[in-house]
């Protein structure tokens, strides 16, 4: 790309000073930093500074108000359950896709990515229909008095839907690269199928499974499009944090929106850190 060789900061520690390099960045570097600053750093800093003007006492009061606490409870607990369910079934799906041959496998493999490609409002719309009292699946539960759409259960279904691909896609490459020989030698040494699974197969899979669960959780916590449609958005029942932010904004309560937004932002950043650590842990098994 458009970089004069002299300006490229070389991997060999060159004698040029830091300032010289900073003022003689090549065009791609300039574009990267300017775009990142305008699009990412300035908005994030603006929100943090805005939140700090509220004052620590007031910040704490808004962040831990009764309604805010209930939305955290709904958002995080439901996301965690949804991510955990996908942890189990995602592992199973990845296993089946890597280890077995069966008709329709390629289509199923490709379809796993559907939640990434399908716009969230469409997902919310169709899930609300299918899981409503007279929908295809909801009507099976309705006779037992179980309502899914417009309750916390529906919220969970939407969160399961949008976080489904993470575990499968994180685990698939790891399963594929796993050496069959290790398993076979375990059998040769007299291990049972069960022992082989627990002692040999599972340990290297734990980090990618946890990474996938963390990714799914992080996505479910922030999800808005599908959840806002399928949830009833009743305060203290199935009102989630992103919807609360939206409502605060609609009421021109900028302080309230900013504080809860900052809480969510900080949690997202922590999750990003956790995911990085989990991935570093997973690489321990790389050879």
């Amino acid at each position, binding site marked *: *790309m458009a970089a*004069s060789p002299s300006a*490229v900061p070389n*991997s060999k520690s060159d004698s040029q000073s830091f300032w010289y390099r900073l003022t003689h960045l090549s065009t*791609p570097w300039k*574009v*990267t930093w300017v*775009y990142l600053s305008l*699009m*990412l750093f*300035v*908005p*994030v800093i*603006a929100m943090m500074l805005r939140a700090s003007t509220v004052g620590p006492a007031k910040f704490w009061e808004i962040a831990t108000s009764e309604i805010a606490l209930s939305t955290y409870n709904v958002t995080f607990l439901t996301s965690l359950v949804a991510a955990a369910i996908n942890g189990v*079934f995602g592992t*199973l*799906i990845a296993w*089946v*896709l890597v*280890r*077995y041959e069966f008709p329709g*496998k*390629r289509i199923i493999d*490709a*379809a*796993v*990515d*559907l939640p*990434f*490609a399908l*716009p*969230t*409002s*469409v997902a*919310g719309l*169709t899930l609300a229909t*299918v899981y409503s009292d007279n*929908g*295809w699946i909801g009507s099976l539960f309705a006779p037992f008095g179980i309502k899914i759409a417009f309750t916390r259960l529906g919220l969970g*279904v939407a969160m*399961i*839907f949008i976080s*489904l*691909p*993470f575990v499968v*896609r994180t685990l698939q*490459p790891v399963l*594929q690269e796993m050496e069959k020989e290790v398993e076979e030698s375990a*059998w040769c040494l007299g291990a049972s199928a069960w022992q082989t699974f627990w002692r040999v197969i599972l340990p290297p899979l734990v980090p990618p499974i946890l990474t*996938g669960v963390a*990714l799914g959780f992080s996505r479910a916590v922030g999800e*808005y*499009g599908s959840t806002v*449609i399928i949830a009833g958005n009743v305060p203290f029942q199935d009102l989630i944090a992103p919807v609360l932010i939206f409502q605060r*904004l609609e009421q021109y309560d900028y302080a309230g929106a*900013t504080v809860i937004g900052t809480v*969510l*932002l900080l949690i997202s950043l922590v999750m990003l850190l956790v*995911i990085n650590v989990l*991935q570093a842990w997973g690489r321990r098994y790389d050879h």
Partner: protein
Amino acid sequence: MTTDLTQFGDRATSTSKAGVPASDKPWIKWLLIGIAILYLVLVLFIPALNVFVQAFSQGVGPFFHNLVEQDFLFAVKLTLIIALIAVPLNTVFGLCAAWAIARHQFPGRTLLLSIIDIPFAISPVVAGLMIVLLYGRNGWFGPFLQANDIKIIFAVPGMVLATAFVTMPFVAREVIPVLEEAGVDQEEAARTLGANDWQIFWRVTLPNIRWGLLYGLILTNARAMGEFGAVSVVSGNIAGKTQTLPLFVEEAYKQYQTPSAYSAAVLLAGLAVVTLILKEILERKTRIKDAAE
């Protein structure tokens, strides 16, 4: 370091290592396959199928009738315009960032990779909120924008910003691994032969990364056209003015115009299906290339 917030891309072949392990009894195999498929049917396939069934439940006539509504046509146009601005912006940024990261070793390289991922980690609503806090009436740039009569929030520029924000990482993420794999040898050879930077980029680098780049573009476009949360915060959602297709779907549903909602939804679902098919094709392309090298 690969901090994959969406593992949309990085997937190895799914056909290798076929064959059932000797210890797996057939009934275990089919039980596991059965459970996996049942789960996918309940969570994934029935909802996906439902979009198409509902859209055409009263035949093709009402479907087309819904499609020529004024507000709907406007939503389609606006969705296309926003994607047409946001996608190229992120492509330029993505290429620059990918080159900067893949071609250099520097302290904080891993940190920069994680920073580029931040938009995936942030809730779309929070992304929208940040843009409102910057460009809104009470925002940092609010007074300046008002003095100059520039409208960003509740207008198209804000929606473009929101879309560009949430789709920022895709191109960079997809291009970085391809760029790393391609290596610098060919570029250096071209330079030795007297090619300038642009020539090297167009004739050597771009052909090497074309499938990865295309892949990133498709993902960016799909998300850009489908984004709901961030766009919804900054748009004000006025039919015929600031309503994109995903917003149209929600609005129609809320107004109990379910047939309209499904007519629009089926278009977006079609986009999703096309995206998945292209993705599958491009994955094979990159794979074949990898195998050949």
